[in-house]
């Protein structure tokens, strides 16, 4: 890493919490952006060396290759259970899961709901791209009505396939959770807001206040069959109306911990 050249000031560099490994994500995919935000937060909080991540099954299955801190790789949907096991024997460590919508809202619905219901003192970074990316673009529980996927070739028919599941809203109804918000990565302003939320989520955990989750609206240009820039428009125009950007639950104590 070059930190100094003649008369130049370093304004941007790889966070220490990321490895040098180039990511395998498709062009325009926002997983990389989300990784970077998490890494920046870990750096800023100085917790890289005491944090354990739990990777999902999905496109971010290899998250542990990109993050420069301890990591385990869970079975599909089970990351919150695995994180629970880790946190219960190492309560002083920071533990977070990083999950997609298929992983979290379909096969892992039981694990996420109960980790939240227990107020498990972990952080969940939940990337909602409304599709199964890794397996080539099938319908996920968060696929929009009428949205075409390889398993809804005529568009998601709500009569037979039901409606999108809004996880942030559902989870925010549980008494034990402290911080549940939805953010989006479709433009720089929202990316900055997402980072702030990620930081608050980790701070919530650091102060022992229990379950925190940031749902992050993300793009999947490859499987949406849209260009990267059109994908960002799709988030803004199609996804946000269904998945509003909002704070769904913020424990009033959180203001105090931030000082």
């Amino acid at each position, binding site marked *: 890493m070059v930190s100094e050249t003649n008369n130049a000031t370093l304004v941007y560099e790889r966070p220490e919490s990321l*490895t040098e490994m180039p990511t395998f994500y498709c062009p325009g995919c926002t997983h990389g952006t989300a990784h970077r935000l998490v890494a920046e937060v870990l750096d800023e909080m100085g917790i*890289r*060396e*005491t*944090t*354990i991540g*739990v*990777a999902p099954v999905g496109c971010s*299955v*290899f998250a*542990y*290759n990109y*993050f*420069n*801190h*301890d*990591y*385990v*790789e*869970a*079975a599909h949907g*089970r990351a919150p*259970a*695995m*994180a*629970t*096991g*880790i946190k*219960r*024997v*190492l309560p002083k*460590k*920071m*533990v977070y899961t990083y999950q997609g919508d298929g992983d979290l809202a379909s096969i892992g619905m*039981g*694990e996420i*709901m*109960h980790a939240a219901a*227990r107020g498990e003192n972990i952080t969940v970074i939940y990337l909602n791209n409304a599709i199964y990316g890794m397996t080539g673009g099938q319908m996920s529980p968060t696929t929009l009505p009428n949205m075409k996927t390889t398993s809804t070739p005529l568009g998601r028919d709500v009569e037979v396939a039901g409606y999108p599941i809004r996880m942030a809203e559902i989870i925010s109804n549980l008494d034990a959770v402290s911080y549940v918000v939805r953010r989006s990565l479709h433009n720089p302003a929202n990316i900055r807001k997402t980072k702030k939320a990620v930081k608050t989520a980790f701070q919530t955990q650091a102060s022992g206040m229990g379950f925190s989750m940031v749902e992050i609206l993300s793009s999947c240009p490859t499987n949406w069959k849209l260009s990267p820039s059109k994908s960002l428009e799709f988030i803004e125009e199609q996804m946000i109306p269904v998945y509003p950007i909002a704070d769904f639950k913020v424990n009033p104590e959180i203001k105090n911990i931030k000082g």
Partner: protein
Amino acid sequence: MVKKLLKGNEAFAEAAIRAGCEGFFGYPITPSTEFLEHMAKRMPELGRGFVQAESEVAAINMVYGAACTGKRAMTASSSPGISLMMEGISYIAGTEVPAVIVNVMRGGPGLGNIAPSQGDYNQMVKGGGHGDYFPIVLAPASVQEAIDYITLAFDLADKYRSLVFVIVDGNLGQMMEPAELPPMRDLDFITPEWAVDGETEGRERRFLSSIYIDPKDEEVTNIRLLRRKLEIEKNEILYHTEEIDDAEIVIVAFGTAGRVASTAVRQARQEGIKVGLFRPITLSPFPYKEIEKLADQAKSMLVAEMNTGMMLDDVSLSVKGKIPIEFYGRMGGITPFPDEILDEIRRINNSPPTDTDFNAREAWLDRLELIIEGEN
């Protein structure tokens, strides 16, 4: 220390605690529930991890997570719950982290019933989850043995980075028996060098996973697991024998069936019948060679189980057709009485089988029908 009257499941749970278990994750299911209840009381008071999970799927994945940190972690369940855990079991095996799982087996398949059974032999011994892996399986036959082997299970799990199943049936889980617990051991374990414990200062990051996306790497892992299995076979086979030296009839039975057979053997000896008992304690690694040796000495064998003859197949592999093998089993949650085994011993003694190539199960089913008729 003196022996006290201890209830199976509670004693097993306390044994696990004293062996240094720092994380227990489970879901209630008869006949193993007292295990979880004991943990619910004791683990928090010791400041150790306990969660009543939302399902066995979650429970095993909590065990997986805790095991990845290098701490001693376990679960206890019963047959249908163990089935649900098979996904996590395969991941634990693929990640090569140590974990101990107690299965208090009950009648099946399906929901079956809550009565004692040995019907999970194949699932436990041969794998059950997907992929190539080899758990260690211990089958105690008394409360004391279960206490001892749960302690051993943690040591073996750590030594080989292996899954260890301790399988008992509802009889042992539910019975009260005089037994002695080991002293509480200190939690002074050295964190293994592979552990993902979030102590990255001064070392490279670590990660644990069961992914080997390149088949070449997966094959390397498969080979490593197989070599470990072979090493375990060399070092860790355990079994118990009674009256075996001059035995012409050898009974092979594990767990509760072995205990029932032991009573029958004693009675038969009083009648002057030369019969002995071979009770495998490690079902995996299975004592093939030891049983083969007995086949060189005895005239026939009788395998007794509380299933349809799952271990019978492994005994047949050991005996290699050298002597006839008969089978006697009860199923569905029924525990045989010593008299049933005694009658089998007498029958074999009166008309020793000579045919090594007959269908032991078919012959047994014919006899069993009459026995069940007599019971009704």
